[in-house]
């Protein structure tokens, strides 16, 4: 690495720009703090992930978890870890990353910290769809669940609601505030539908639906985790490919257009990715609240970026979800669903954001 070829020499009168780094034909801006923070957060997330695998009725130490992950573990550990606990821990990681990146996209596109998938109705739509399929016992509903699975159906519901919000908010362009307001209204409608379904449904179905609605990682199996993992990886690749074109869009549509960005297309692709990521997450773990809202904002502050950083947001999302799940399982004698813990963290954080926004506005 020849490094820092564009680094200003610090002589008086020369502006201090972020230095550039060149590796062969590849060059990028070097921001040491952001990279350091992101690596640190990723390390913590990975440690929590290992810890989460070790905790349970059959406790396994960190070193044995690490050995097993490297393929050198005892057969007993290997069975417990790979077959029983890995799906849950991995689901936490995947759902966290998906929610974090999804939130970073929606908040950046709307240029509004409140525009998370929860607020934009995506989560609500997925939830209402799932509850509908669980509670309405009938030929078609059962057939749908049997053929595509609850997760995929919830994903479709989230996608549908996301698109509805987008089209309702579209007036010769997308305005952040209008997107948030329409998202809140549509969310309210989906919540009303969910409540109505729960009130009228059979009590046994309600219990199942309720457990799903809180957001939980209990009893995940490889069959549920694998599609979510694959889908998330594909979507992250798409996001990474478009992210470069997205950079000028933080400056507004007109400036981005002036800089040669086809902003409508870039925005449509990214929002679609955000909706699908959130939908996958909801499908895999239920509507875990607040992670998509909190992760990008926390990442922004920790990494000292003026806009939600994509990678760091995903990492913080994973850290939050895996950490919250760990707390949910170990803090109290009874194991709680992860959504209870994220709500406990996220609620106050939302209040903090609103107060700050109020002070500024």
């Amino acid at each position, binding site marked *: 690495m020849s490094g820092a070829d564009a680094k200003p020499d610090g002589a008086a009168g020369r*502006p201090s720009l*972020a230095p550039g*780094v060149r590796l062969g*034909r590849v060059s990028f801006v070097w921001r040491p703090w952001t990279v350091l923070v992101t690596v640190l957060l990723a390390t913590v997330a990975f440690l929590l992930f290992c810890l989460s695998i070790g905790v349970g009725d059959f406790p396994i130490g960190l070193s044995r978890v690490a050995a097993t992950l490297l393929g050198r573990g005892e057969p007993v550990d290997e069975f417990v870890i790979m077959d029983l606990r890995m799906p849950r821990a991995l689901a936490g990681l995947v759902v966290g990353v998906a929610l974090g990146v999804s939130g970073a996209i929606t908040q950046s596109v709307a240029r509004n910290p409140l525009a998370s998938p929860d607020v934009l109705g995506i989560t609500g739509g997925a939830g209402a769809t799932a509850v509908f399929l669980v509670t309405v016992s009938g030929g078609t509903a059962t057939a749908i669940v049997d053929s595509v699975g609850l997760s995929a159906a919830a994903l479709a519901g989230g996608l549908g609601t996301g698109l509805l919000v987008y089209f309702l908010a579209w007036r010769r362009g997308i305005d952040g505030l209008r997107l948030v307001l329409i998202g809140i209204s549509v969310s309210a409608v989906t919540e009303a539908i969910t409540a109505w379904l729960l009130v009228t449904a059979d009590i046994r179905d309600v219990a199942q639906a309720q457990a799903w609605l809180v957001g939980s990682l209990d009893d995940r199996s490889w069959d549920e985790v694998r599609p979510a993992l694959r889908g998330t990886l594909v979507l992250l690749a798409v996001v990474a490919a478009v992210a470069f074109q997205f950079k000028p869009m933080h*400056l507004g549509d007109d400036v981005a257009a*002036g800089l040669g*960005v086809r902003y409508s297309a870039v925005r449509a692709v990214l929002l679609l990715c955000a909706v699908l990521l959130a939908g996958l997450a909801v499908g895999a773990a239920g509507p875990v609240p607040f992670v998509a809202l909190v992760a990008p904002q926390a990442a922004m502050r920790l990494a000292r*970026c*003026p806009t939600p950083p994509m990678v760091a947001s995903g990492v913080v999302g994973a850290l939050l979800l895996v950490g919250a799940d760990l707390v949910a399982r170990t803090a109290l004698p009874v194991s709680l669903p992860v959504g209870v813990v994220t709500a406990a963290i996220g609620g106050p954080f939302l209040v903090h954001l609103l107060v700050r926004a109020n002070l500024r506005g």
Partner: protein
Amino acid sequence: MVTQSVTGIESGAVAPSRLAARGVTVGYGTRTVIDELDAAIPPGVITTIIGPNGCGKSTLLRTLSRLLKPTKGAVVLDGEDIGRLRTRDVAKKLGLLPQAPVAPEGLTVGDLVARGRHPHQSWLRQWSSDDAAVVERALAMTGVSDLADRPVDTLSGGQRQRVWISMTLAQGTDLLLLDEPTTYLDLAHAIDVLDLVNDLHESGCTVVMVLHDLNLATRYSDNLIVMRDGSILAQGHPRDVVTADLLHEAFGLRAKVIDDPVGDRPLIVPIGRTHVQLP
């Protein structure tokens, strides 16, 4: 109708226009703002579009900069229909500063101006030594090098506008379109920004801008496009165009046009209903 050609102001040389609107019709929804308008931007000078509120001057600038797509006609950039060019290629030739842009809170001046290099970058090549050199030059030219580390939102309105112009400059085009660059600025800062625009012109840029203040437009432009109701009423050097009759026709404004005591252009003295002592 006093449409005059002003190609090659003093020298008399006729250079081909690099940017022109050919019979463009533009509107929002069903409302037509500009109807079959022709306009050519003379190279190497400052052209300012003026006219009463709602006459379509910003619409014309946005059309020239491909932000708005005409329903009829075309905008021609260096001989090619701008609508058929890749927007990225247009961005390498034409820099644009929209009206009252807003930077995210906390974004530094250096990072904002560096964003101007976007059309020259790619996914793999996100920052080269060329970029650094151009950005440093842009910061220096606009006199904001010392502010490079400051967040844009902590600057005064005048400084902020310099920074945005710096970003447009970092794009490395010699064709600059500025939509009301003096909006929200007090007179001192407005003069400061327009002096900067004149510096850019002297360094070889062709500038097209929209201004509200007629005297500033007259002082700082070599070519005025006067619009009313979506069409061009007059075009030419301020000395030829700015007359009491034209001001009345375009703005419905009574005014006396005198020689600018400190410049070589006309000066407009508006006449309202009150506080006027006419001989």
